[in-house]
């Protein structure tokens, strides 16, 4: 085999593999990326039912309820970013670190007429830590400025305006 043919084989193999990898990556990206959304974004523009999104916020204190459908347990709780709240239902065991009034990320989709149905609930963090996404969402909604200390109690958010929130935090 000539040198040129051998080099051609090598180039074909490289281009084939890398092109295949790039095509696979792009097609997988287009269908499998999960957007992060806050409750107010979901309220404003609910995602289509076939789209998996990550909903992040704080669990409203006192909102966690356990229900039973046949032998299947269902947890319902509200997630808020201080402006609006979304009811999440999750079939399964909530993670060990799940707490009312603490941050949570729920992976799932909006079901028409059924609220947000989560397939996975992530609460990996301890009480002082807040996932970056949640912290950003809170800051964007104006409910919390990290300059003034820890975030206010999630239970009180829906009732508070921005001014009250910062006053409450500064008063601490």
């Amino acid at each position, binding site marked *: *085999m000539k*040198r040129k043919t*051998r*080099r051609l*084989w*090598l180039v074909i*193999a*490289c281009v084939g*593999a*890398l092109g*295949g*990898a790039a095509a*696979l*990556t792009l*097609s*997988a*990206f287009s*269908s*499998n*990326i*999960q*957007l*992060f959304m806050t409750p107010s974004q979901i309220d404003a523009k609910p995602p289509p039912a076939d789209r*998996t999104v*990550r909903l992040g916020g704080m669990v409203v204190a006192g909102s966690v309820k*356990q229900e*039973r459908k046949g*032998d*299947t*347990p269902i947890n319902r709780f509200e997630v808020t970013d201080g402006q609006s709240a979304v009811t999440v239902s999750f*079939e*399964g*065991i*909530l993670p*060990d*670190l799940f707490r009312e009034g603490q941050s949570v990320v729920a*992976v799932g989709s909006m079901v028409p007429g059924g609220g947000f149905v989560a397939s996975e609930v992530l609460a990996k963090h301890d*009480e002082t830590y*807040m*996932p*970056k*996404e949640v*912290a*950003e969402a809170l800051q964007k909604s104006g409910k919390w400025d990290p300059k003034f200390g820890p975030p206010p109690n999630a239970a009180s958010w829906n009732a508070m305006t921005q001014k009250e929130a910062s006053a409450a935090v500064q008063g601490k």
Partner: protein
Amino acid sequence: MSPELGRFALSLACVFALAQTILPLIGAQRRDRRLMTLAPGLALGQLVALAASFLCLVNAAITNDFSVSNILENSAVAKPLLYKITGVWGNHEGSILLWAMILGICGAAVAAFGRNLPSALKARVLAVLGGVAAGFELFCLTTSDPFDRVWPAPLDGQGMNPLLQDPGLAFHPPILYTGYVGFAVPFAFAIAALIEGRVDAAWGRWVRPWAVAAWAFLTCGIALGSWWSYYVLGWGGYWFWDPVENASLIPWLSGTALMHSAVVVEKREALKIWTVLLAIGTFSFSLSGTFLVRSGILNSVHAFAQDPARGIFILGLLGLVIGGSLVLFAWRAPALTAGGLFAPVSREGALVLNNILLCSLCAVVLTGTMYPPFMSLLFGKTISVGKPFFDAATIPLAIPLFAFMGFGPMLPWKRAQLWPVLRRLWVAALITLVAFGINLWGLSGVLPVLCATFAVWVIASSATDIASRIALFRVPLSQSLQRARSLPRSAFGAALAHAGVGVTVLGLAAMSQAQHRIVEVHVGQTERLAGYDWTLTGVKTEPGPNYTAMVATIEIRHNGHIVTVMHPSKRSFNSQNQTTTEVSIHTNGLSDLYGVIGDRHGPAANPTYVLRLHYNPLAPWMWFGALIMAMGGALSLSDRRMRVGAPRRAPLPDAVAAE
């Protein structure tokens, strides 16, 4: 006093490391024998100083010295002794110290085992290792001092996350780190070769054992981490495609490619520049992976901002190591003589294909891991990619890799004919065809069927490879055994490692068929899953040393016969307001029955309990296969050819005087 002694020893190690970098480099450049022979002694001195420093920290942890802030934050009097020791590397500062010490061990190992290395190459390799070590020791001393004191010293520490108090996690970091750090040695060889401007067959032979050893450790470390998350986190999953996990998978993929391309350098003196680049890339991935993830840059800019000095130091160090070596590569690589091109159908052709596919896989995982942080950094869009993305993007690339793995090792070097090789593989092909039929019937989904089929193909063809080399069934058995004895151990090692990949992939494919149910039941109620009857017979409360546990008793029956009784529990830790889930797993080698107990609901008189029950077919095979891969690596390392009888390198013409 001991913490100050530890800090002093660490400073001493840093001085040794700086000397180890500068003096031998000058010596190698000037061909000054005295300066070059300093390197091994300095490397040993550095290791002794690092070990002393590490022991000081361990001592502080054992004796509950809560005046050391690192011990205060991560330990407590009530913690068991084992976790006091392993807790030393369960935090940022301690893990950097452990990292530096393993790097010191690698340097000392090169100094001790590299007796047949040419003195200039050895001096340069040790100098590069010293330079990397000096960087990390400086980082440790200036930004993350493990020996920092607090005043006044409190009576008790703050304790350790109960999730981390587990034997699997205790030994996971040292093994994983040995894998990561081990790739520093091939990296040092690559840099030394670039400075020298020379890569030849002997270089390939010297690099290979280090790459194989690091790879075997990394394999074990990844498997141990995955096993830990399977039995501790209690989600029934084993791999979450989380950035921390990907950070270990990326160097594993490129390290696997490096291990194979070094063979081509050794046997055919080709792919030299590529191998040097892979060695640089693999170590850069291990370095940036661990430190970007540990420092929190990848997951959240939040943790990074807590201590800007640390982040800037890490970025600077990474930039220096990676940028510096790439600049050196760009400058010096053209000076390396390129190897010849070769026939596509040959052993080296198959190894090139292996490299192309592994690197494509590596690129896909890297893209999937880095895309979300880039998007949030550049466009402020928060997105994430998870298992669906990685499954869709990696499995179609992995399947051709498994297909070629079957006959690649059987192709002869230089020029091969495809047909005779395929003819020798007819038994393996037949077994694979039967397996395909069984898989079609037993598994659902196209990708699991293909993966399981090619996994069988890999195992069967690895066995065929050995069988045909020892002429099994073609000559009398005694003669075959004699041939087996004279067959190099690295041939067995390679076949074993390939078979290990097959075993792991079979486990992964079968796990895609795992079944689970989440139920809420009263005591005495029976649920059915995967042909088993699971009965909750009782729940009781048991006190533990620093927690209270709710322990369930679940009886599992198959066709009326009792299979096992399992006791999953949920522990509530009094001090830290934390709960942990203790999974109960019953395995018979072919499948795992996996039970988790959740919350108690309803009235106290007649409560219900949430249970999660899993049936995980072939789950243990995933980790068992990784163990087989690592054993294959160890078997290769025990091959005499890896240690002695390396081809003597012809001395450079102008080096004769100095030699």
